[in-house]
């Protein structure tokens, strides 16, 4: 029984077009041209309980819009949507008690007071019984190392410390579905890693479904077995990372270290993308040629070291966007 089901979801906005020039402005007084912007178009997928799904896409791709529709913050224009058996936009209390939303750069904690007070507020709003609350709070304090942070006013915390408290506040009621919109944005590398590992651990421990949007490949790589790539409101890819790479990167890189570069016609072996004076050469080679070319290089040249690399995932994703081919 999937925890989230979306069928043919669509969200369209009417936007008033404003052309430049006085004449156009006057004309727009009389008849305004409307244009329809489709933020999400015919999107369908299902999420099983406990799955961690990453949404990738450039800005304006429709990731956040989709997430908001799942959280009940936006009404869809068309399509069916079901989260934990509820219709999100009806915003029933039973539904809202089981979900949570964390938006990077936007805080739900009250600024001037210690984080613990915001926690208390959530406890009252979610009607969490005191023993349960204390239990969850202890666990979260442990996992996120919140100890000294809770009593300090939120405005005195650093961005990373605040983010940890944000996440804790969002999880006090042990939601079954987590919507995380760019949770690691603006954080330093260490903190990003901490948050990632926490989310992973939380998912393991409590079996909550996690829907995560991010710009950072590292987030997605570390956490999400399943990736949905959205661009222009359409799903371009839905599957795991390895398939994505396999399907979309037709090339691999062969990096060799040579004793000397002199006299060798490197181009004959393959497309040379880089070479340095110290003897490091990088070939870009079609996947099915890798074995053959490597063999030839090893046979013909005085190779000191050889490595075979996958291209960085960013460039793979870029290719997916560029091609806009639905997989």
């Amino acid at each position, binding site marked *: 029984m999937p925890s989230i089901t979306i069928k043919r979801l669509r969200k369209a906005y009417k936007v008033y077009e404003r052309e430049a020039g006085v004449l156009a402005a006057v004309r727009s007084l009389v008849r305004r041209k409307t244009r329809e912007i489709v933020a999400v178009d015919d999107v369908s997928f299902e999420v099983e309980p406990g799955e961690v799904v990453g949404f990738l896409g450039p800005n304006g791709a429709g990731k956040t819009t989709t997430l908001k529709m799942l959280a009940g913050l936006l009404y869809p224009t068309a399509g069916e949507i079901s989260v934990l058996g509820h219709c999100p936009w009806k915003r029933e209390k039973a539904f*809202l008690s089981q979900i949570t*939303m964390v938006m990077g750069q936007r805080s739900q904690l009250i600024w001037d007071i210690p984080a613990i007070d915001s926690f208390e507020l959530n406890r009252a709003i979610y009607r969490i019984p005191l023993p349960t609350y204390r239990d969850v709070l202890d666990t979260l304090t442990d996992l996120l190392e919140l100890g000294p942070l809770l009593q300090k006013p939120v405005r005195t915390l650093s961005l990373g410390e605040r983010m940890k408290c944000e996440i804790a506040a969002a999880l006090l009621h042990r939601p079954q579905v987590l919507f995380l919109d760019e949770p690691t944005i603006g954080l330093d590398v260490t903190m990003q890693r901490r948050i990632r590992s926490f989310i992973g651990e939380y998912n393991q421990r409590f079996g909550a479904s996690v829907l995560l949007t991010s710009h950072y490949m590292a987030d997605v790589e570390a956490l999400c077995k399943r990736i949905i790539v959205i661009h222009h409101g359409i799903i371009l890819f839905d599957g795991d990372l390895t398939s994505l790479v396999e399907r979309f990167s037709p090339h691999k890189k062969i990096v060799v270290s040579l004793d000397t570069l002199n006299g060798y016609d490197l181009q004959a072996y393959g497309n040379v993308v880089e070479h340095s004076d110290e003897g490091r050469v990088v070939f870009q080679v079609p996947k099915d040629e890798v074995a053959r070319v490597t063999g030839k290089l090893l046979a013909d040249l005085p190779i000191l070291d050889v490595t075979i690399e996958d291209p960085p995932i960013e460039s793979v994703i870029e290719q997916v966007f560029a091609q806009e081919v639905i997989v």
Partner: protein
Amino acid sequence: MRSFLQPFQSLRLLWVFFRISLLNEAAYRANFFMQVLQSLINLATSLVLLLTIFSYTSALNGWRPAELLALVGVYFLMGGLMNVVLQPSMSRFMKDIRMGTLDYTLTKPEDAQVLVSMQQVEIWRLVDVLLGIVIIIVAMFWRGTIVNAWEILGFVATLIAGAMIIYSFLLVLATISFWYVKVDNILVIFQSMYEAGRWPVTIYPGWLRIILTFIVPVAFAITVPASALVGQLTWYILLGAVILAIVALLGARSFWRIGLRHYTGASA
């Protein structure tokens, strides 16, 4: 059964918000004293004016000195109630829309209007509430005539009705933010016009009286409850206030829901 318990559950939440403000402000005694100073200064100005006026006449538009003092008390009382939770909460709501943090309020399993209306408490404003009550008691003693149970009941009823009307008015103003985000100053309109409530609305020329009754409901907030205290309340004004309060609450609630639907992109 559920919806019958609703208002009481909201009160429980209101208490949580109060507690948070109290716990966190208690350390800032300077703010407390500042509020006391400001309120006393406010009162002193009123008293000086009243004293000067009553050195020239014994009654102003049918209101005797003690009665005008009672009105001043209601002015402080109602002003305090407004500024302790309503005005700060509405301000914060409008800021949340601008900052994009309203979404957090909307994902909570609690009626958004309830949360928005009580989410910010400024605890030291209770000084005005206390001051208002003290002034009213002093004024009633000075006035001398014994207040009977009916008058007290009338006062409480009109006070509650007035508070409900004010709340609805502020909520309607704040709801406009769903459409026009930049109107953060709009609540100040009410604060400015509230100043006119230091005096019985009947003193003002017709056009101003109408504005202060039906457009910016200062009359229902202050003059009507004060008139109850001094035995000037009539049955039909009391009934009118109560009916208006109910209509205002329902109207504000509907407008809120329309605004919320607009904000969340529901087709009209």
